[in-house]
């Protein structure tokens, strides 16, 4: 085993029931290291639920979620509490309904995301309270990292404004920047293009490709914008009623009759976009 395992995330037999509702039934898929893996499906298919299971917000009814770091270290996510999944397994997510620290400044949002590193540097607040150089240096580094992501996302000008006062598109980008500041190995994006206009969506698509390349990142992407999905993903998993109906490279998924019929049951333009790709 000299090569690092190619599989970053292996989901096996994931099932999630809420009382009588089965939101996900026996779902298995894998995500390769360095890939952008998209999860698509009609509304209510269970995509967000998959994220919630992965990031520990839900405890799966059945299933095994295994994450392997490049070092070979393995994590069984279904056994870990949510904050440890982010802290130790470095799986960081964004939310379908943006969850920023709205009253805090944009920069603070990014500094809070580096909480773990900064807490250690502040000697659990002791070095920080004494204003020791160790802590000051660590804080400066955190601000520099935040500045990098602000520049990347074009948010530098509003760095000191409350995050809640940003326009919608900027809030989405800030949430991605915040996740990146937490140092993810696997970044899970829940509908990052929702509510963005075409220009913003194109920018997002470039951005995701770039940061994936530059930061050795793997991305799990839930998205309804089919053009975006087809353009940037390496692998697509299609969910319908909690089950995987098809998976493979975008070209294969696009042509699959099961996928088309699942989508034809829902908004028509989505199905058309799916068959045509980006117009």
């Amino acid at each position: 085993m000299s090569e690092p395992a190619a599989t970053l995330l292996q989901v096996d037999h994931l099932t999630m029931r809420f009382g009588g509702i089965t939101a996900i039934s026996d779902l298995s898929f894998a995500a390769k290291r360095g890939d952008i893996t998209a999860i698509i499906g009609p509304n209510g298919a269970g995509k967000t639920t998959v994220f919630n299971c992965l990031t520990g917000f839900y405890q799966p009814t059945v299933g095994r979620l295994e994450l392997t770091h490049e070092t070979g270290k393995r994590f069984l996510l279904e056994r870990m509490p949510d904050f440890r999944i982010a802290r130790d397994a470095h799986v960081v997510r964004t939310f379908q309904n943006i969850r920023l620290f709205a009253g805090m400044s944009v920069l603070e949002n990014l500094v809070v995301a580096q909480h773990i590193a900064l807490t250690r540097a502040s000697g659990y607040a002791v070095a920080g309270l004494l204003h020791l150089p160790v802590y000051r240096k660590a804080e400066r580094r955190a601000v520099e990292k935040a500045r990098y992501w602000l520049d990347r996302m074009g948010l530098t000008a509003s760095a000191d404004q409350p995050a809640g006062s940003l326009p919608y598109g900027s809030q989405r980008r800030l949430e991605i920047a915040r996740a990146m500041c937490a140092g993810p190995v696997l970044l899970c994006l829940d509908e990052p293009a929702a509510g963005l206009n075409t220009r913003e969506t194109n920018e997002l698509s470039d951005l995701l490709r770039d940061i994936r390349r530059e930061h050795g990142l793997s991305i799990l992407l839930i998205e309804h914008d089919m053009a975006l999905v087809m353009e940037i993903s390496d692998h697509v998993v299609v969910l319908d009623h909690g089950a995987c109906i098809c998976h493979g490279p975008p070209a294969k998924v696009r042509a699959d009759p099961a996928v088309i019929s699942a989508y034809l049951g829902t908004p028509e333009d989505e199905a058309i976009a799916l068959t045509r790709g980006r117009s």
Partner: protein
Amino acid sequence: MAAADRQRPPFVAMLRDSALAAVVAALLAVPLLGVRLVDNASGLTLDRRLPLVLYAAAAVFAGRLLLSLAGRYLAPSLRGMTASLPGMPRNSLVIFGWVLVAAALLLPWMPFAERNLIDKLTLILIYVMLGWGLNIVVGLAGLLDLGYVAFYAIGAYAYALLSMHFGLSFWICLPLAGLIAAMFGIALGFPVLRLRGDYLAIVTLGFGEIIRVVLLNWQAVTNGPNGITGIERPTLFGLSFSRAADGPTFAGFFGIEYAPAQRVYFLYYLILALAMLTTLFAQRIRRLPTGRAWEALREDEIACRSLGMNPVTVKLSAFAIGASFAGLAGSFFATRQGFISPESFSFIESATILAIVVLGGMGSQIGIVLAAVLLVGLPEWFRDLAEYRMLVFGGAMVLIMLWRPQGLLSRREPTVLLDPKPASAEATVP
């Protein structure tokens, strides 16, 4: 002219609205005020009191009209007035803060500073310190704590009992009391980890009552409702402030004449130092990961967890640190009074401290000072009006909620700026 046209309909609407209110009042007043049973020689008769009904209706009509007029014409100007408050630049607030500190330091040397005034200021400063401590829990971490007085009580009893049974001096007991209160803070924190908002408020309220009831009933340890008397008074590096003591006295050491006021002045400086410790600590920790985590938790707990923060440690640290300052204040209270009983730690104290925090503007250090002066200082000076205290208190809270729901002074300053200097220079350029 067009403006006048547009103005008239609201006035007509106000009149109609007031008339309607007057009719309702009159209808209600007929059975309530309009008739009276009179017991006279010929048996019970009904006495009609029509004028009273008319007075009531007229009063309601006038009151209602005045309220709507005030709401229409006064509120915008009030709002305009207050809008200038948050615009106050940060620097001027900081300077104002240090001026206040300097004034507090120099005050006892002023000719008008008699003992009574210093004593009252000491009391206000206790509440300022409690407000600053509670602000860590409520203002920063967003955990609504209605039982804060419990930690104050624990600090007071911790000092009283430690000094009584082990003969420990005030200066050793002070940090111990803070520590013990912090431990109780954690003990309270555990069961309420999953609660937020109203539910948390109810449980903490219950916790405050439990502590008070235990103090009241655990005769063997706390001496129940009679409280603990003869609590050791504080010393300055071993110098006591009494006329004659076993050890050296303050007056004797400095070769000055003994005066009972010396202790009052000493206590004043002591609580000033403790309060300053609280606010400086709070302001520093707000800029540290711990403090930012508290604020982040207040904003969105789920997002916190998704970034790897353990909500348990974040919440418990807020409870523990908030409680420890109440513990310090409590032992100061005990040493100042020389006597404590459960009576001093009733729910109304928690409510007062919370009101100070809310009125002051959550997170605002100076706002809390103003609120403490208003809520604790004014009732002390106007003792004769003590009966109306709760009325004024309630009225003030209602007004503040209508007028400035965010508190007297509240403008959140970011804990870190991207480019601290250029940013302020930029502010002058449009």
